[in-house]
């Protein structure tokens, strides 16, 4: 599903690579934690999957497509198959829950009938039934993140990228967020989550890829956050 082959990324005006000869394979339906200290290249990894950034060397395949050969014209179609969640939610403050989720479908030209059918389903899936008409400011952080997850998942992506989705949320609420991510993963969606949250990684017992200074220092199935000696 996601295939990095010897990928190196050096940002302009930086001499140290953000990713340094990274090779990794993520299969369809996997749940993978991307861990590592701040600045180790986790977000860069996710941006490369989205083709928001281009690698300086190495090749990246996502959903069977070589990103280097993917024309700019086709990048939106790649992104339609990838959902994204971030630490800062990125909701539209002037739209309610329903509208925020529907927005993702409207802007890719989905018919209104389809939108009316799937949006309530997804809102229920993330556990926000009854709150469809709340504005983002009327929701807690955890609920806002659920809206963001609903929006990321509403188009049934093959891959869900989550960049520190629990970064702004207290540990108790984070468990709920992880349950939603797990539920999404069980529908067959590949989930790739960058995080600092040791407790979550340890409790989930999923595959863990650890980065340090842009290099993969550990790749462990059913791993934990800290180095397991």
């Amino acid at each position, binding site marked *: 599903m996601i295939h990095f082959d010897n990928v190196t990324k050096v940002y302009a005006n930086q001499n140290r690579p953000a990713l340094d000869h990274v090779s990794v394979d993520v299969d369809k339906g996997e749940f993978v934690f991307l861990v590592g200290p701040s600045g180790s290249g986790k977000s860069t990894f996710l941006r490369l999957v989205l083709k928001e950034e281009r690698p300086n060397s190495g090749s990246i395949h996502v959903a069977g497509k070589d990103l280097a050969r993917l024309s700019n014209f086709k990048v*939106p179609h790649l*992104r339609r198959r990838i959902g994204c969640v971030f630490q800062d939610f990125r909701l*539209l403050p002037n739209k309610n829950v329903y509208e925020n989720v529907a*927005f993702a479908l409207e*802007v*890719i*030209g989905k018919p209104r009938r389809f939108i009316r059918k799937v949006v309530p389903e997804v809102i229920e899936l993330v556990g926000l039934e009854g709150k469809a008409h709340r504005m983002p400011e009327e929701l807690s952080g955890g609920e806002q993140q659920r809206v963001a997850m609903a929006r990321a998942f509403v*188009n049934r992506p093959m891959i869900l990228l989550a960049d520190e989705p629990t970064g702004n949320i207290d540990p108790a609420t984070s468990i709920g967020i992880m349950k939603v991510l797990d539920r999404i993963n069980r529908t067959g969606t590949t989930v790739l989550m960058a995080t600092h949250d040791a407790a979550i990684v340890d409790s989930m017992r999923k595959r863990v890829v650890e980065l340090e200074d842009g290099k993969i220092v550990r790749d462990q199935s059913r791993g934990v956050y800290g180095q397991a000696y």
Partner: protein
Amino acid sequence: MRANFIFSEVWIGLRRNLTMTIAVIVTVAVGMALLGVGLMINSQVSRLTSYWTDKVELSVYLCTDKSPFPACKNRGAVTEAEKTSLKQTIQAMPDVERVEFEDQAQAYKNFQESDSNKLLLSVTRVEDMPESFRVKLKDPDKAAAVADSLSGQPAVSRIINQRVLLDSVFGFMGKLRNMALGVAILMVFAATLLIGNTVRLSAYNRRRETGIMRLVGASNIYIQLPFVMEGLIAGLIGGVFAGVLLIITKILVFEGIQMYMQNPIGWDTVAGVITLTMVIGVLICVLASFITLRRYLRV
């Protein structure tokens, strides 16, 4: 493509930048109106030119008894012998197509018809009118040369080259046209900058929306269309105002001077000019939006 989604975005965008939008509309309206006026003057000049080219003549006036012109000093009115010889001289010139003699009675009649000054008419007598030869040339461009060679002839008081009169009228209209076009270009330039600024503001205001649109895989067209439509609508409204200004110009100015111009431009010309300025206005707005978009909206 969801049309109502795009339109609601466009409407929000236009309203959010209302002052900028008004500035764009006014600039486009004035710029396009001036461009249209320039084009209308242009087509008026070319109509007049083609109307007059085959009518241009030289008027060779002959001395009367009391002619005040220096060439007639110390001599009386033109004699029959002089007329005959002058007519032969003119006819012999290679550039001359035909010569007609206008006698005093005819001249007086023409004068009565053309001049509305009652006082002047009442004190002017038939004997005061000069006789003249009306010289039609094969090539109107040769008028000056022919006039030169005739001006030294005996009993010729003065020569009026209609061509020179027309040239000064055309020259004046040409200057007007150039001024209108010059200001139009400046306005177009200003409009481009204004549109650029509006789009930049719009892109900044909508950065959250466009960021999410990129993320969920909206196509570039979908992301850019609301901005380009803002430019398009501002351009269209400006174009409509320009069209109204052009219609007013046609009624007030071109109809007003119609009595001096035997061949005024018609409404078909005005319609053509309005269409052209509209198309140009809209194209400029759309292009300006599109170009600034590339700079301020990462896609």
